[in-house]
């Protein structure tokens, strides 16, 4: 199957994700949890429309642009909003990306965010520090369909207020959680981290 990526003709196998063909930043995508298409950081232009590279399959004759000024501006804005709302101090990759894109979160003024949230320590193994959470949902998928089938984590709230938590906000030991830490492994921001690391 042939398609055009950033002006160059390319060969791709059937069913390949655009992510495998282009170099774009990702945040919510994770191969084990199959989480995709949420954070919009990996957006590319496909035949003139914006599509997430992590959730779009290559098709014959497609024309894909991965690094236009418009896309860069979009990624920069996304990151600025993340920096404004979230504590990214344990996410070095996102920080580096912000630097590379010359993000200036200050230009949006003050935004109400989750930065002030207190970390939840309700079990002997790991911490849930949602001030650092970017809502990528990898943890929810790792715990649910992706790996464990335990469903001790769910998403609550909408839009900017959406965030992962336990069913009815119970402490983890009162949920079906088995403390496998698979959610901790896939969390990209340190929002979930072992107590031994704190």
């Amino acid at each position, binding site marked *: 199957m042939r398609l055009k990526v950033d002006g160059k003709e390319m060969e791709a196998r059937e069913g390949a994700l655009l992510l495998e063909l282009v170099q774009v930043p990702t945040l919510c995508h994770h191969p*084990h949890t199959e989480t995709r298409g949420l954070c919009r950081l990996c957006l590319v232009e496909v035949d003139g429309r914006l599509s997430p590279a992590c959730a779009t399959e290559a098709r014959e004759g497609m024309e894909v642009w991965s690094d236009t000024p418009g896309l860069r501006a979009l990624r920069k804005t996304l990151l600025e909003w993340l920096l404004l709302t979230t504590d990214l101090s344990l996410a070095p990759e996102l920080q580096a990306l912000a630097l590379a894109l010359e993000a200036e979160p200050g230009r949006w003024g003050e935004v109400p965010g989750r930065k002030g949230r207190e970390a939840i320590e309700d*079990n002997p193994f790991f911490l849930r520090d949602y001030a650092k959470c970017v809502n990528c949902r990898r943890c929810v998928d790792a715990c649910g369909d992706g790996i464990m089938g335990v469903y001790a984590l769910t998403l609550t709230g909408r839009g900017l207020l959406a965030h992962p938590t336990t069913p009815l906000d119970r402490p983890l030991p009162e949920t079906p959680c*088995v403390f496998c830490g698979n959610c901790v492994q896939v969390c990209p921001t340190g929002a979930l981290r072992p107590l*031994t690391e704190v």
Partner: protein
Amino acid sequence: MRTTCPYCGVGCQLEPEVRAGRVVRVLAPDLPPNHGALCVKGRFGLDFPFSGKRLLYPMLRERKGAPLRRVSWEEALDFAAHRLHETLKAHGPEALAVFPSAKTTNEEVYLAQKLARVLLSTHNVDHCSRLCHSSSTAALSRALGGASMTNPLEDIWKTDLFLVVGSNTTETHPVIAAMIKKRVRQGARMIVVDPRYTGMAEAATLWLRVRPGTDLFLLNAMARVVVEEGLWNRAYVEERTEGFQAWAESLAPYTLERAEEVTGVPGERIREAARLYATTERAGAYWAMGVTQHTKGTATAQALVNLALATGKVGREGAGLNPLRGQNNVQGAGDMGALPDVLPGYAKVAEEEARRRFEAFWGVPLSPKPGLRMTEVFEAIPEVKAIYLIGEDPMTSEPFQDHTKAQLEALPFLIVQDILENETTPFADVVFPAASFLEKEGTFTNTDRRVQRVRRVLDPPGEARPDWWITRELGRRLAALSGRPWPLHEGPEAIWEEIRRALPGMMGGISYRRLEKEGVRWPCPSEDHPGEAVLFRERFNTPSGRARFFPVDYTPPAETPDEAYPLTLSTGRVLFHWHGGTLSRNSRLEAAYPELKVEVNPRDAARLGIADGERVFVVSRRGRIQARAWVTDRTPEGVVYAPFHFAEAPANRLTQDALDPISRIPEYKVSAVRLEKLD
């Protein structure tokens, strides 16, 4: 650095991140068998090497009653070698026993069993799988000529029906359970046979709640349906098996009506299960201790084997017979010959040709008489006068604890080689402090025959040394005393190279260099061989190449409830702990599950006036322990369930030592008990 989890037989690959001599975080790489997933034990339970209970220095006691005193390695090793040699001279090889451990590496097990056979001339070699899967081993070996999982774990993704018998997989092999459950979410079906409402039962398409100790009846009844309804695989049975006719006839008494009476499972459900299993082409059977730890453990495993053979499930992708091995290196310990009747690679001690080969390879004569099994060794004290115990804690793991204690007290000489102080250490005459899995090199073999690397990421504390080093040094001294050959291996890789030469067809193609990347499954005869995934595709490992049916009959458990002891006690494990608890209870896992809880059905609780969380005594004919009652319908009426991880309240004080006649496994799963309120 990547290494292999030291807890269970899944053999998860893990990457501990070490900072300032501590494990701060454990990640899992995207490699088989676990592909990034772990369970709580591998993820958060790896801090036991830092426990205050670490044995740090060699110690010995000159005579019984004297205290253990710290000595140098030289002194401890010399002392131990002399005592073993004296015992050998005075009482002969039968008076000695060596127990390698299924928690140590292949290299270490190989060396320990070699020490027993070559330097002490004894086949009294065994390890803890005697107490877990010896029944499966016995059944599979005689029927198929091999005793491991027939299919790889990757086959879970190709399986359309899981038949899970007596395995609390979600707690004992959690990563496998997560895989199976994911496959079920993708549309596969699952039949679970278990008295308890386990995580697997919860995810099952069909849950058959058998009465404890009656699975054999159920499996035979399923088989009877298969035969009666003509659902058996004629072509397969004719081409690849023998003994079908006699077996089919032996099923006559196992009618659905009788099965319903004995097992408590409605006959129609048994029929449904039989049809589902027989008519699904890719149907894999998985089982564990619920099958094996009975006086009829071997027979029950055999019934499962028979059923699989009749329906043509062995030697096929996505199907097969898959005993889930418990300890991290149970498979390896068996492969390396830590068994009294077989040499490395399962060559029978009693067979002349096999013996000759190893006599030539090691340069010593070998006795044709198989040794004693672990349970028999403890019985044979004080005729058995010296035991070299590596990484085992019989005080916690043997049944009928008070008896074990008396036996250990009567034993003239005991060497304990371990990483942590445990319930057995007080009985030791010599203590060798060993290095933990984080502190040494070597290989473990997981439940699906995958040989995987163990790597040193930390230095051993104090004067602790890797088990291979200790065994090598002890061997060096014994060899000097006896004049027998004992090549000094420079390290684990050199020992592995000897193993490759000893077992060319099985391990010949597996080199450390190859294992750098990922584990390789045996049999693997050459470096360009990928390692065998599915066993017995073409022929079985029996002399005729055909698998054999063995008719097996149901017998009730050795002890049944009566007026004085009206409840049935079943023992097992919980997610947060591991076996005797030596490792898990010296780690962060302890905080999540600090004390013994005994599961009691709400109806029994109501009848006895026991409230959830109340302290109770569990009492059997052999002893009593204290526990906290957990009132839950996970356990059926009439059955209480207790994990055996708690040394201060050892469930094995209650269990009996009634043994399976073939595998000599004790009946841990059924004993009669009563509950008493504390006040």
